[in-house]
């Protein structure tokens, strides 16, 4: 009896997975479709026109891609840098105004970054942060921080500070303690947080668009016009590159951190 139930649920779950993944397959097909008029179910003509365009120097896509990756990696790095200590504090210590701090840090998850960007734009222009790499990085931090804190705080709460205390007792100074005890233990959380933050930053359009002012061009921005115009083949090509690039970056981060810290798999959302 238990088996039958399990099978029905398996079917539903796999169907859902299929439904979610089929559109991806369709994009892949579209990226190779030179000519695919209505009402054919398969393209009349396959070709790599789209791919040729993508890789040709005129489109600048590769350089934009690399630029975007670098930008998002910077955002990820800075986010981790500032959120690790903050998460530790929120998880393990009590202080005055803690509730307020928590609310403020997690607020950007819910309050629209769009409104914030429009609000701060003027100031950024004045401070000459607008249209700069750094300005865009700064503004990307806003949506990224809450995701990172959410995960890392969870990790710290689960792990507690008993290991740090152990390290202290065995003679490690705060810096050594942090590097040799804290980091390895929370490394699964770091991997989760870094992956999520990278994804959030890499996918940003509006924030980059507004604050970057057209001078700072990231990959989603290059994609946008193609999506708008309805040139499906090229849009599909760009989409696939996006997905593949994301997956590769995430995999590399995952591997790198895992190799360094040799930990198992966790899921700290």
């Amino acid at each position, binding site marked *: 009896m238990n088996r039958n139930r*399990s099978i029905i*649920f*398996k079917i*539903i*779950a*796999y169907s859902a*997975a299929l439904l*979610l*993944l089929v*559109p*991806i397959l*369709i*994009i892949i097909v*579209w990226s190779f479709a030179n000519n695919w008029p*209505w*009402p054919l*179910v398969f393209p009349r003509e396959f070709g790599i026109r789209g791919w040729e365009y993508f890789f040709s120097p005129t489109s600048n896509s590769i350089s934009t891609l690399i630029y975007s990756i670098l930008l998002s990696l910077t955002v990820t790095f800075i986010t981790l840098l*500032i*959120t690790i*200590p*903050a998460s530790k504090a929120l998880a393990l210590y009590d202080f005055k105004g803690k509730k307020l701090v928590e*609310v*403020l*840090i*997690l*607020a950007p998850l*819910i*309050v*629209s970054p*769009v*409104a*914030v*960007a*429009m*609000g*701060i734009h003027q100031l950024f222009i004045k401070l000459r942060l607008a249209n700069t790499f750094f300005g865009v990085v*700064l*503004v990307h*931090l*806003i949506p990224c*921080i809450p995701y990172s804190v959410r995960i890392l705080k969870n990790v710290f709460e689960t792990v507690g500070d008993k290991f740090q205390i152990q390290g202290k007792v065995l003679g490690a100074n705060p810096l050594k303690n942090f590097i040799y005890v804290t980091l390895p233990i929370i490394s699964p959380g770091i991997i989760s947080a870094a*992956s*999520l933050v990278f*994804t959030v930053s*890499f*996918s940003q*359009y509006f924030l980059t668009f507004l604050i970057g002012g057209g001078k700072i061009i990231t990959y*989603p921005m290059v*994609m*946008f016009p193609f*999506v708008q115009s*309805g040139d*499906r083949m090229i849009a*599909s090509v760009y*989409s696939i590159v*996006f*997905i593949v690039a*994301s997956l590769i970056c995430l995999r590399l981060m995952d591997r790198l951190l895992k190799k360094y810290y040799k930990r198992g798999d966790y*899921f700290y*959302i």
Partner: protein
Amino acid sequence: MIMPVMVIIIGIFILGLIMGLLQSLGYFKAVGLTEITLNYYREVLRSKDFISSLGFSLYISIISSLIAVVLGVLLAYCIVESQGKGRLADIIFMIPISIPHVVAVIMVYNTLSQSGILPRLLYAVGFLEDPSYFPSLIYDRKGMGIIITYLWKEIPFVAMVVYTVLDNINERLTDVALNLGANRRQVFLHVILPLILPSIFSAFIIIFAFSFGAYEVPFLLGPTSPKTLPVKAYVEYINPDFKNRPYAMVINMIVTFISIILVWMYFKAFKWISKYTGDFNE
């Protein structure tokens, strides 16, 4: 410890909101507006255009979030009950999350526009006679394309949030309840549902707030009119007449205000959650 983070949060996030507030109240030094006034608010709140945008935004967010929550919970339940963890859960959850909304838009476009895959399949099978018979799901006044795009990303998200809690509860407490004589339906209603409700609620708030304040998807797939609030705000923002700026900010502030209410609700749910999970650390 928390200094650096707070600098960013206060320096950019809070400051951005404050500046937006000031500008919405008419204070915009750069163009010579120095009088604090509620006039802009009055004008906007009375405009028919704004009201219809507000309604449209709320409609899209509510419908997409509700459906996403219901289907997401069911999906999470199916995955947990199918007992085949690992691979499947990872795929279902991780891929839609790492795919940006822009790409999701393309997918929806490719599948469901009048020249998309679905109508082509229906035509080939004989169900459809002409592309125009397929309902226009993109750029339509009902916002179907927008909703479906959101669903594609949000259902896995809800499923992921719920799955974590569900997995924790599921086996042990389900066994206990069954053992005490409850049938499957009763177990779900009286044990599982109450325990996952707080998580469902917080997931709902997050996806509702996101869809309410988002720009990209409604911009790409939305009708010319009504626009959703963030899109409308941007249109006002890029008006070459800087004196128009306050109108944009009023819209932003109204969106922010609604979001702040949601933030409050979210933290209430948080308290609720910790009450129920206290027992699992034994």
